[in-house]
């Protein structure tokens, strides 16, 4: 039997969502208000990013920037450092909401 004999393969992502994979509960007294704070912060940030991205996509189209050009983009060390700093700021904010 080889790999190609499998008609429909179970994807790794679907294995992660298997209902048998029960997530334990570690937080005894879940403060739903804190969870709502964190969720809304994340939703706001996603909305900000989406709006910003729209601007870039519109400008990019005008300048002939293709999907292939976006996929082959390589971040410079400066861009990479900026991203790392931004991610940490976001995580710090969400974790502080949950504390």
């Amino acid at each position, binding site marked *: 039997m080889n790999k190609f004999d499998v008609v429909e393969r179970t994807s*790794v992502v679907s294995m992660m969502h298997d209902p048998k994979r029960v997530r334990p509960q*570690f937080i005894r007294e879940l403060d739903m208000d804190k969870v709502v704070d964190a969720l809304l912060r994340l939703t706001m940030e996603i909305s900000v990013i989406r709006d910003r991205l729209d601007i870039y996509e519109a400008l990019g189209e005008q300048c002939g920037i293709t999907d292939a050009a976006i996929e082959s983009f390589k971040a410079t060390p400066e861009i*990479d450092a900026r991203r*790392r700093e931004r991610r940490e700021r976001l995580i710090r904010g969400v974790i502080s909401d949950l504390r």
Partner: protein
Amino acid sequence: MTLPMNKLYRTNQEEQARQGFVGALKTFVNGKLEREVVRRYHEELAPAYRAKQGHDATTRYEAIPVLEPDPDYQLWCSTVYSSQDLLWETTGETVDRLLPAFDQRAAEIEANPARLGSLKLDPRLELPTPIANTEIHRQPGGYFYRQSQADLSAALLYMGSVENYRTAKGFGAPGEPCDTSSDKGLASIVAEKYPQLKPRRVLDMGCGVGAMAMGLKQALPQAEVHGLDLSAPFVRFAHLWANDLGLELHMRQADAASTGYDDGAFDLIVSQILFHETWHDKLPAIMREAHRLLRPGGVFFNIDTPYQPGRIGIPEQVLNNWQVANNGEPFWVGFSETSVKSELERAGFAAADVFATYQAMGGGREFFMFGAQKTDRNGA
């Protein structure tokens, strides 16, 4: 012809962004948040315990009930668990996308009669329990998972998670998978400790997907390098990947406690993170097998996690204990509480030839290094 495997493993921009986030999240919760839990323990929880009990908590068993009700500790548990789930989900997304291309490349390499090295699988090998039933690091399906004989997903998923970890820690540039630079460094560490040793036949025990075996072959091109692991997908993946790097490796699916190689077959036997991912009851048999496989004067050299209880504080022991119970590290404590020097002596190595030390390697991270040189009665 498809691209070689080391050129095939590439995350797209969205996957990179997700995995970059997961890396940052893990760095935060395992770094700053963890340090905050430890600080609270020392500055608030431990003094309160002392005031109430009249003495300090001196073991993790006393400290666990002190930390468990603490909201910061609970948040740490919850976010560490979530970040591990996200690691597998985001890596799994890349694996699901790339698997067909890897399958095609694997078929091309296996169809080439001039391929380098060798691969020996053992379909009758009985996987020892509880190792066989354990999802180390909570990797979905575990290290032995296969939907068919040729399913490489477990190996690809493992390699992808290591890539995420390396990138998050700044150990390697994104887009350069399966970096072997730190593994090449192992050859220098061994050479520094044993300058007389000129390894001709080398074995990597519990080689995983083969990064260290490949690094050793690059560092010691004249040596014949072998790798063994219990996982069929791992050794097959290593064989294929090594071919695409032009490296001749000899891979075997076998139990490190019963390998099937001849007595005295190797000059150097190495392992990296084998013992903390192996049921500690197996450790004596693996060490005896290493002793049998070494020629006189040969060296057994192991690298593993530096979390022996005497070296870390009480709250850190509680956090490690949680990882053991909840986060796919079930064999960690068994290993960290084992006296490896005593076990090496029991396995047949002379007390004077045994060592155990802590040393930085690859990115400055400290590792526990231990092993022995097999007595050479001819003094060679």
